[in-house]
């Protein structure tokens, strides 16, 4: 347990409001190293329940690295070391007692390129519930699959061909399938790593609409290269630069009156 007394008592260079009233995830003084190289420097931020927060910043600024710390996906990289504390519901996720498997079931993830398994649409969505034993019968599993596909807006398009391969769908449909697959395990938080960067504008619009819908029930952290996208969908925006969290704040404020010069430079298109 992270004690309540010191979580809001933290030294930080970040400009803006890093704290939230109802924090789901609390990150304090997080450093990430790839071998000798430091990719994230002293980042502290809260992520609230049912908020959509976007991470923006130039390429290589560490926003994806930081995102992958939140569900310990960086564990798969041998040279990666994480320091500082990240807690989910006030439990340190890097504690030895935490089972990374259950953690990742609570924090779902959607990746940059749509990556459906080479299995049927049904099997793709049913994969998570199956390995976590979330259903006790075929009917229950069918119900979960149907609901997840409905929530991801894909049900009407695929309900007649659930047994055809997921890789046969279009790019946008594949990405929504991946979202359905992530929400099928009923996570509390969904991390999205540039989910629209491989999609065309129409598919992107559909995903953005879907993210807005999902924001009512889940906390969503989205890394994006598109500032317009961040402006359209997120309530809060965090600007990263060279591994540091420069500025956090309400999206409107960040985009209209950024306090930091670097943020302003990025938003007005001078760096990035």
């Amino acid at each position: 347990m992270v004690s309540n007394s010191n979580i809001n008592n933290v030294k930080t260079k970040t400009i803006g409001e890093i704290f939230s009233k109802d924090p789901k995830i609390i990150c304090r003084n997080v450093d990430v190293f790839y071998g000798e190289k430091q990719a994230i420097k002293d980042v502290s931020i809260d992520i609230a329940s049912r908020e959509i927060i976007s991470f923006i910043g130039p390429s290589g600024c560490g926003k994806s690295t930081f995102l992958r710390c939140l569900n310990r996906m960086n564990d798969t990289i041998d040279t990666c070391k994480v320091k500082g504390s990240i807690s989910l519901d006030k439990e340190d996720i890097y504690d030895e007692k935490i089972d990374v498997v259950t953690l990742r079931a609570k924090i779902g993830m959607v990746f940059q390129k749509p990556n459906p398994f080479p299995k049927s649409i049904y099997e793709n969505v049913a994969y998570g519930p199956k390995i976590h034993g979330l259903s006790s019968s075929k009917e229950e599993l069918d119900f979960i699959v149907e609901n997840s596909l409905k929530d991801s807006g894909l049900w009407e398009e695929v309900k007649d061909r659930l047994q055809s391969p997921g890789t046969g769908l279009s790019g946008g449909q594949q990405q929504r399938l991946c979202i359905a697959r992530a929400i099928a395990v009923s996570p509390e938080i969904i991390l999205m790593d540039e989910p629209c960067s491989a999609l065309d504008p129409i598919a992107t619009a559909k995903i953005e609409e879907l993210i807005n819908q999902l924001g009512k029930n889940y906390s969503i952290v989205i890394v994006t290269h598109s500032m317009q996208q961040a402006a359209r969908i997120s309530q809060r925006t965090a600007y990263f630069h060279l591994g540091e969290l420069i500025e956090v704040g309400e999206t409107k404020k960040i985009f209209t009156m950024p306090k930091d010069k670097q943020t302003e430079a990025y938003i007005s298109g001078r760096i990035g």
Partner: protein
Amino acid sequence: MNEYTLLILLLLISLLWFYFGNKTALSLKNKQLKLNSLPHYYGIYVALYSIIPSLFSYLLILVFDGILFSNLIMEFVPKEILNSPDFNKIIVLAQIDNAVRGIYFGEQPDWVTIASNQMIEWNNQSLIVNFFCSISLALGIGYLGFKNIHQEFRSRNSVEKIIISLLGLSSIIAILTTIGIVFSVIFESLRFFAIIPASEFLFGLTWNPQFEGAERAGSGQEGLASYGSVPLFVGTFLISLIALCVSVPIGLFSAVYLSEYANKKERSIFKPLLEILAGIPTVVYGFFAALTVAPLMRNGGSLIGLDVASESALAAGFVMGIMIIPFISSLSDDVINAVPQSLRDAGYGLGSTKNEVITNVIIPAALPGIIASIILAVSRAIGETMIVVMAAGLAANLSFNPLDAVTTVTAQIVTILVGDQEFESAKTLSAFALALTLIVITLILNFYALHVVKKYREQYE
């Protein structure tokens, strides 16, 4: 002077042309003219231009004068030998040829001496003709190529074209050889099927070619020999099956370990060690099977009350399985590594353990490639000979019991063709029929493997 001096001369001429071509191009360049290609391409162009036609004519004359002379020399063979029932052109030619080389014992018949002297004279004349033809071609055509050199001549493109046709020629040679092998087997098999009906060969249950004698070949009566190939193919598949039971789990599991669990250092040690298995000659596996594994199995079997033949399918299949492990592990390792990292991430992102990712995501995604590697291993196992000859025995038992001695198609081909053989008998010819059937089976397996691999590739593009 002989053929080799001629060859060296041709090479020297083309080197000379290279020098001249290069020099001319350089002089053009020194006149501040902008050349189309680098100077040495002009040299290479002239050199290739001179050597290819001259080499071609050299080889052509070398091949055809032999054929021509062997027909002309028949003039010198006495009528009584030509007309005698024992006349054999090959033997007569060999006799003359030996005289030409000076290899003979005792007195030669007069006609042989005359013919061989004539042959020597012809050979010398042909060499002189060859000499002049090749040299003049090398000089003449080389000169034509040399004349081609001017400022705008695209020698680089021409050299590319010549190189491309040389590369194409090499691959055609490989293909033609394969076709030649298949046809030589087909023609001999047809001769076999003229004696033994194909239905008997394909469906007969007894294989016993040892008693092939004059009865059958001469009078057309039933001989004692029988040519039912079923026991051989059953033996082949039994041994291959045992080999697969050994190699598929071990190969696959080691591939999974190498690609998913081993760290870089372990991988750099284990993978080459595993691939050493593929470098061991099969005859070494053979005596390992015959001298170590087979007695071990017989003794082990007798301990628990099993009657294991001293040459058993089990021993041969087991060792063959060890032999094909690297095929499966190495190829499977490659396909498992080819599974995109994004699929692994997807699995981990949903909260799978490493084991679940491997069994539910990676293996299904890599399955077509794994199947292809297994099929390639099967065709390797079916074609394997040495281990079987040494460890499985030669008794053509129709048995599905792995503890019995069985034999395989390849082992039988070896026993049939080793030693002095009469090429007209059904026994000898049966080897070709067996080979043909085997080629067809492995061909089908290979085609199927390629098809599976192709399907797999389509999935990830």
